[in-house]
Structures are given as C-alpha cells and as structure tokens.
C-alpha cells in the first residue's frame, strides 16, 4: 500500500467503501504501515495547521481557470502509450498525489482566507477521477503551477517586509517539499535535485535578519531559476515526450 492510497484515505476522498475498509484492515494488521500512516497524518496535519497568507482573488480565479481548462483538455486527450523511461512511471505513479498536492496547495491558500469562498467540491476530485488517463498532465500541471506561483510570489515580494516575506516563503517551502518528496520517492532524482536546491535559498530568504539588498538579490536568483525550470518543463510537456530529465 503506497502513500498515494494513504493520502486519499486521510482526506476521505477518492476511495470506495471497500477500498477504505481494505486500508483500515491493513493499518490494523501492519504496524509498519500504521507508523507510516501516522507520520503522513502529522505531515498533512501540519499543512492544515500552517497559518498562511490569503491568496489574492485573481490568483484563485486563475488557478480554477487553469484546472478547469486542463480538465477539459484531458477529457478529449488521447493518451500516448508510455515508453520504458522511468519518468513516465513517475508520472503515472504520482498522479494522485500530485493532483492532490495541487488541491492541498489551493486549500492552504484558501484556508483562513477572506477570499470569496471555498474550492469547488469537485475541483481536484475531477482531476484524480481517472488517474491512468490523466496522470501526465496532472503532474506537470501541478509542477507548473507550483513553479509559476512561486516565481510570481517571489517577484511580487517587498524586499523590506520581513514578516510577510518569511510567512509567504515558508508556504513555498512547504509546497516545494511536497513535490521534492514525490520526486524522490518516485525515482526522479533530477527533478528532486532542482527542488532541493531551491530550499537553502528560500530558507536564507525567509531569515528575519536578511538585508533588503540581499533579499532582492536572492529573489531575483530564484525567479530566474524558476523561469528556467518552467521553460524546460513546459517545453518537454509540449513536446509530449515521456521523459522529463530536468
């Protein structure tokens, strides 16, 4: 039983009654799995508890728009058979978690927000409905959104406003870790390395005692690197290759 299933179980979403009972039975009979599930719960609880800044309404609207359009495209897309390259299996294998991570990310931004309302009930359940058919675009979309939003948020940051910057960056770090973990667990070391490389810079940027000049410099560096990764990712997705060797 993998983390994807446990994550769905945690959110009480995407599993049939029989599948849920199967998970419950496995958790009772397998102590190691139970420990793993508790760890996962702690991580996901941490995400829920994380006090985040509200997302601007135009960004929320854009996320919804991106998701809706992607859903429409996927509904008519013909899925190419996967090659033997490992990243293909990574896409397939992490589809549910990736889509869920996107949902979580949106949920984090929406939580405690004064923005107009909640995420539509089927926003991400639609995406994970048939993961086998939708996985590649779901994962790449999740990453693209993560990179785009990270870049936009960093670019828009006030280099002098330490408190707000720290909080926003901690949000980005949380999401970054989610994607890094998915990449590591699913044998995509190239992608995991890039995501890991962002964290030390983000951590430095979140420090309270950083000068505005240094903050501006680091923000510019991250924005550039995110742009490069975005370009490469977008190019590879548009090429419809099975591999993404970022």
């Amino acid at each position, binding site marked *: 039983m993998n983390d994807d299933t446990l994550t769905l179980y945690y959110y009480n979403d995407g599993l049939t009654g029989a599948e849920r009972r199967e998970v419950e039975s496995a958790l009772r009979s397998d102590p190691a799995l139970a420990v793993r599930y508790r760890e996962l719960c702690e991580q996901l609880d941490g995400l829920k508890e994380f006090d985040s800044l509200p997302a601007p309404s135009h960004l929320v609207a854009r996320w919804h728009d991106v998701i809706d359009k992607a859903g429409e495209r996927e509904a008519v897309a013909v899925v190419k058979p996967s090659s033997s390259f490992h990243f293909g299996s990574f896409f397939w294998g992490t589809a549910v978690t990736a889509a869920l991570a996107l949902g979580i990310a949106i949920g984090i931004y929406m939580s405690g927000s004064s923005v107009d309302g909640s995420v539509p009930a089927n926003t991400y359940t639609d995406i994970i409905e048939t993961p086998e058919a939708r996985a590649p675009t779901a994962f790449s979309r999740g990453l693209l959104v993560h990179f785009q939003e990270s870049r936009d948020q960093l670019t828009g940051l006030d280099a002098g406003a330490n408190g707000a910057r720290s909080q926003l960056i901690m949000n980005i770090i949380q999401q970054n870790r989610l994607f890094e973990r998915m990449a590591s667990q699913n044998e995509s070391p190239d992608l995991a390395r890039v995501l890991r490389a962002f964290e*030390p810079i983000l951590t430095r940027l979140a420090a309270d005692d950083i000068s505005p000049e240094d903050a501006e410099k680091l923000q510019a560096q991250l924005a550039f690197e995110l742009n490069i990764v975005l370009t490469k990712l977008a190019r590879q997705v548009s090429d419809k290759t099975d591999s993404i060797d970022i």
Partner: protein
Amino acid sequence: MKNIVKTFLACALLLLVGASFAQTDDNEELKIAALEALMSAPPERALPIVNKVLSGNDSDEIKSRALFILSQISLPEAQAALIDAARNTSGELRMEAIRMIGISGNPEALSGLSDLYESGDSEVRDAVLEAYLIAGDSDAIYQIAINSQDPKEYEIAVHMLSAMGALEHLRTLGERGDMSETLINAYAVAGDVESLRVHANDASNPEIQVQAITALGIVGGPEVNASLVEIYRGSESPEVREAALDGMMIAGYDEGVLELFRASQDTEEKRRLLQMLVMMDSDAVWDVIDATLGNQQ
C-alpha cells in the same frame, strides 16, 4: 526551425546588448532575459553561447545565471564547464558553480568536489556539503564525517545525514564507536527508533543513555510511548526515570504519566508525576487532583 530562430534571437540579443549598452541595470536585465531565452534552444546550440558568457567580462550575477543554464544541460561539455568554473573561479561565482554541480548530479563532477573540499576554506566546504545535500550524495557526506577531525564539521555532516534520512550511514558511525550527543540527535531527526532504543537500554554510558531516552520522545508515536513507560518502570536510576518522564513530556504522552501516577504507591513519586501532568497541561490532571483531594478528605 523554431529552435534555430530562438537560438539566433537569443544569441543576437546577447551580442547586441554587449555591444551597444553601457553597464546599466537595464543592460543586466536584458542579458538575463536573453539567457532565459537560451533555455528554449537545443542544448548543443545554447552551450557555446553560455560558455562565451562565462569567459567574458560580464558581472558575476550574469555568470551565475549562465551557470544555472549549464546545470540544466546534460551534455558532458556542460559538466566539464561547471567543474572548470568550480576550480578556476573565486568568490560567489565559485560557490554557485559548486551548487550547480550538486544540481546537475553528475557523478564525475560530484567526485571532483572532494578535492575542492579538502583544499577549500570554510565557505567552499559549506558549499560542497550543500552540493552533496542537493545531489542526495549521502556517501560523500559520510566520508566527510568519518574523516573529520573537527567536531563542528563532524556535527554538520551528521546533521546532514540525518536530514537525508541516511540511517545506514548513521548506524555505521555509531558502530564505529563515535557515539555522541550529535549522533543521538541525528537518530532522533532521522526517526531511528531502533538505534535510540538500543542506547536507551544500555547503561554502560549513562550520559548517552539519558540523551537517547529523551530523544525517543522527539520521535514519539505509540511504539515509543510504550518503550518510555517500560524504561521508567524498569530502572531504579533517578536520571533514567527523569529522562523517561522528559521523553513522555516531549512526546505529549500524558496517558503514560497518568498510568504511572495511578500505579505509584510512593507519595514523593506521585507528587513528581502530578507536577509533570500539570506541566503537560493534561486534561486528566483535574480528575487526578479531584481524586487526590477526595482521598485526603
């Protein structure tokens, strides 16, 4: 065809900017935009342009950006250029080149970092360690830990191994007799209950034993909670018992403390356990207080 046009445009933009602008912020921004555009070009076309930027007179900021482009190009020539930059540049640019080797993850380039580490100053050493961390190269960090004569350096390396979850390497360090508070903390961060339990039950080094018991509380969880109660009950040592209580407090296991309180026949011990429940802000404490006062009436 599109790629050729993009490459040409990016190249032309870089040359144009270099030739016709003064060294201004706008100029820098334009060059950075040109470098970004290079990412759309085929690697074999982008590489010579990036190399030209690196060997030119541009600012360190522009060159740093060029290094990142190199890290995204998987051609051997790009890796060679990164190694060259790590060896033959200085200051911030050198640190960036080392970081980029970590991002590229190329084994040959990574192995070249060990020489730099040996001969480098503290900044270079930190950069190399960070590159290993980015690359997920726990073997290289382990080598640094076992060869280190500097406690601070050892601590950093062990801390990184724990962050990477490199349990086998951490256990091997313990088996070598390098047991220390640093390693105990690393086991805790890595969630290595098995190793912590071994040291928590080993009275041959009381200091390490106490640290291991407390560290079990950091890991937490039902399995650990049961162990902490067992350790408390199985020991006569006040230090060990105190550490087990501390572990339960860190783990937030008030049920265990309550269980010990109810089982205890020793007034002094009960007083200590009650204090602990109060410190833990346990809901059960009011029942205990009520019952205790009731018994006295």
